[in-house]
């Protein structure tokens, strides 16, 4: 998938997000990207919607449920939430929604920072394979992939979606 297509996807989710915020009367949302791909997407949305509040970033490594199996990613980046999330409307941004475990971990981490008024989820790609009851509020593109296929956002410049076959 080319970078133009990714840019188009980001543009369309930004527009949808704008409509959603208007509909819900949310004037001052907090945008938070999940490392790494989610941060790239969030940066663009943040720019396109002219969001006042600084962009937040979340690294969910410490909240993963598979720590005992795969361990810690060697390059854990600090989470950076330069604002209080109490009673705020949070827009969580990720590149790919797959099993839902990343979002579960991200929400757990968020609640360790405070009690948001609401959390919405924006994802560039939604693919099959959910293992938890988690759904996105806004989806750029739906992909029906089998379990041997893997979709990944590469970046930061240019942003590209890559689908790989995983050989057993």
């Amino acid at each position, binding site marked *: 998938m080319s970078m133009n297509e990714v840019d188009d996807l980001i543009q369309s989710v930004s527009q949808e997000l704008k409509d959603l915020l208007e509909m819900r009367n949310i004037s001052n949302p907090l945008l938070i990207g999940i490392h790494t791909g989610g941060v790239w997407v969030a940066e663009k949305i943040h720019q396109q919607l002219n969001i006042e509040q600084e962009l937040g970033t979340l*690294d969910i*490594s*410490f*909240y993963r449920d598979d*720590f*005992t*199996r795969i*361990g*810690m990613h*060697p*390059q*854990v*980046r*600090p*989470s*950076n*939430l330069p604002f209080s999330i109490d009673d705020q409307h949070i827009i969580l941004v990720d590149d790919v929604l797959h099993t839902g475990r990343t979002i579960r971990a991200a929400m*757990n*981490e968020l*609640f*360790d*920072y*405070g009690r948001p008024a609401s959390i919405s989820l924006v994802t560039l790609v939604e693919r099959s394979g959910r293992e938890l009851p988690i759904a996105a509020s806004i989806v750029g593109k739906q992909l029906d992939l089998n379990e041997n296929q893997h979709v990944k956002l590469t970046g930061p410049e240019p942003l590209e979606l890559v689908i790989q076959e995983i050989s057993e």
Partner: protein
Amino acid sequence: MNLQVDENGRIRHFLSIDGLSRDILTNILDTAESFAGVTAQSIKKVPLLRGKTIVNLFFEPSTRTRTTFELAAKRLSADVLNINLNASATSKGETLLDTLRNLEAMHSDMFVVRHADSGAAHFIATHTQPHISIINAGDGRHAHPTQAMLDMFTIRRHKKEFKNLTVAIVGDVLHSRVARSQIIALNLLGAAAIRVVAPRTLVPAGIDALGVKVHHHLESGIRDADVVIMLRLQNERMQGALLPSEHEYFKLYGLTENRLAVAKPDAIVMHPGPINRGVEMDSQVADGSRSVILQQVSYGIAVRMAIMSMTMRSQQDVEVAKDAN
């Protein structure tokens, strides 16, 4: 074979800086950087080591090291047992190995060990079941590797990188396990110059083999230094008359604002604590703007969280292997 590192190059025990690679040290510092952010959360806890049992096994009294280890373990959501063996089973005649067997039977996952004998943590690591990680919290005069790592973290936070730094380590190097670990870590991380500043009686023989320059004069030792690390005068470990008096020590080696003027203007002053005010340094320096002594304590928690979670990670493989059998 290096007892500390598993076949995949990850640390499973943390016994000394000796034998570790620059990559491992950098990895620890990077991981600690993200744990430092946990203190910004209103709930200062991450669920990484939930369900794990960590035993603080202290054969020698310590407040700061034990409490920061305890807090680090609790912030990782582990369960913590503090065992003070001065006052416990050993006084009833139980051997060390029996004590270890008992703690193993309680399904512990990690021992944090402090002992007055050099090599104690290493001994325990070779005599416990392989799935238990051992972290050395100070053994005799040998090593205090987590203290050295938190010092490296503090230096990196303030100076960004090590390659152009001149670091002066001042004081009772002879009795200091911290100094040995610091010197090895600074060399691995590529500090430009390491100086040891102490009276002749407090410099261990052969220290120049570690790649340091020995100074016996405080002013020449800290001149143009970027980092000045003061060591505690370890009176409790001194046998015989190594020093005329504390007063005289302060006169010659005590750090004052005046003397600090010869160091770089942006030099930082560190001390592993506890400070003997008026012996190693003046209160004015300890509480002054260049002192980062209390930051060292805060950073110690993040660094210990990093080391604990990294050793526990490689321990998981042992358990998987055990399950497969």
